[in-house]
């Protein structure tokens, strides 16, 4: 026999900000996403630390960071990813207003900007390999590819999530009741952006 108080849906969703009532009064999915992002800090912290420790450990005569890095190219890639964070937050604002047209436009734009970033990374990797830097060349190559490769995989997953959301929006299945879905994908997307902010500075800009 149930002993809990039954709360009318319209009351409960208003009191909890739109999602079903929970023990904390907050969305469990959103808490889970923030916990996941916190754990991702540990993952990328480990990869970035490994890179910083090993990037100066190239064997004599092998490729070093200044030999291969193309700062202007990577700066443009960084700008693209930064702007995708703007379009993502505009997509969230659009669905919060119930503006389906702009939601679709901004979701597609964000996905395309993310795909552009990944394309740039593939191009960069291709150039580096042609110049003789691969996973086994030296410790710099190993740690660089693992770090930026992991980040690239995260961006690629984000692009797939964004295109899935866009597909749902086009089919009319991303209504006002799915605001939190867009918000969660947005949190993930902004996280890959802040990771790149750190990577861009520590890996590319600091000599």
């Amino acid at each position, binding site marked *: 026999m149930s002993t809990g108080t039954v709360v009318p849906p319209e009351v409960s969703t208003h009191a*909890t*900000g*739109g*999602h079903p009532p929970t023990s*904390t009064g*907050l*969305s469990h999915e*959103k*808490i889970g996403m*923030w*916990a996941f*992002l*916190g754990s*991702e*800090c*540990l993952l*990328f*912290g*480990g990869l*970035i*630390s490994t890179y*910083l*420790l090993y990037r100066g450990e190239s064997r004599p005569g092998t490729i070093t960071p200044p030999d291969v890095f193309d*700062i*202007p190219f990577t700066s443009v890639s*960084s*700008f693209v990813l*930064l*702007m995708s*964070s*703007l379009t*993502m*937050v*505009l997509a*969230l*604002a*659009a669905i*919060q*207003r*119930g*503006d389906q*047209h*702009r939601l679709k436009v901004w979701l597609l734009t964000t996905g395309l900007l993310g795909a552009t970033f990944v394309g740039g990374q593939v191009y960069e990797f291709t150039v580096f390999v042609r110049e003789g830097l691969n996973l086994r060349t030296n410790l710099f190559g190993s740690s660089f590819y693992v770090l930026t490769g992991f980040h690239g995989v995260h961006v690629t997953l984000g692009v797939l999530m964004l295109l899935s959301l866009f597909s749902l929006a086009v089919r009319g299945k991303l209504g006002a009741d799915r*605001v*939190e879905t867009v*918000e969660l994908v*947005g*949190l993930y997307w*902004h*996280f890959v*952006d*802040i990771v790149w*902010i*750190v990577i*861009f*500075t*520590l890996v590319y*800009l*600091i*000599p």
Partner: protein
Amino acid sequence: MSTATSDNAETSSTVTTDHGGGHEHPSDWQYIKIAMLLAFITGAEVVMSYVPSLGGLLVPGLLILSIIKFAIVVMWFMHLRFDNKLFRRVFVTGLALALFCYGIVMLTFNLPR
């Protein structure tokens, strides 16, 4: 969770949105201004990396600008500034653990041997 406060998409560039519990989010135009600031900081970082006369100021300068960009995205685009404090605590716990753990790793491996 967010709720809509405007039913007119044409006014979207000027309104703010409620994020539940009375918290207000920036308008679209405010988001654009924040993105312009981020782009400006990124440009400044790139320019700094080409200025040899900065010497020992280069690394601290780049780190500070990077931290500022990180904080702006987390607080404004990820809405941590407006959301419940529990979300902030959960994220900051992971971030602090990472900084603490890998800070020790860096210090250990970089100590004079």
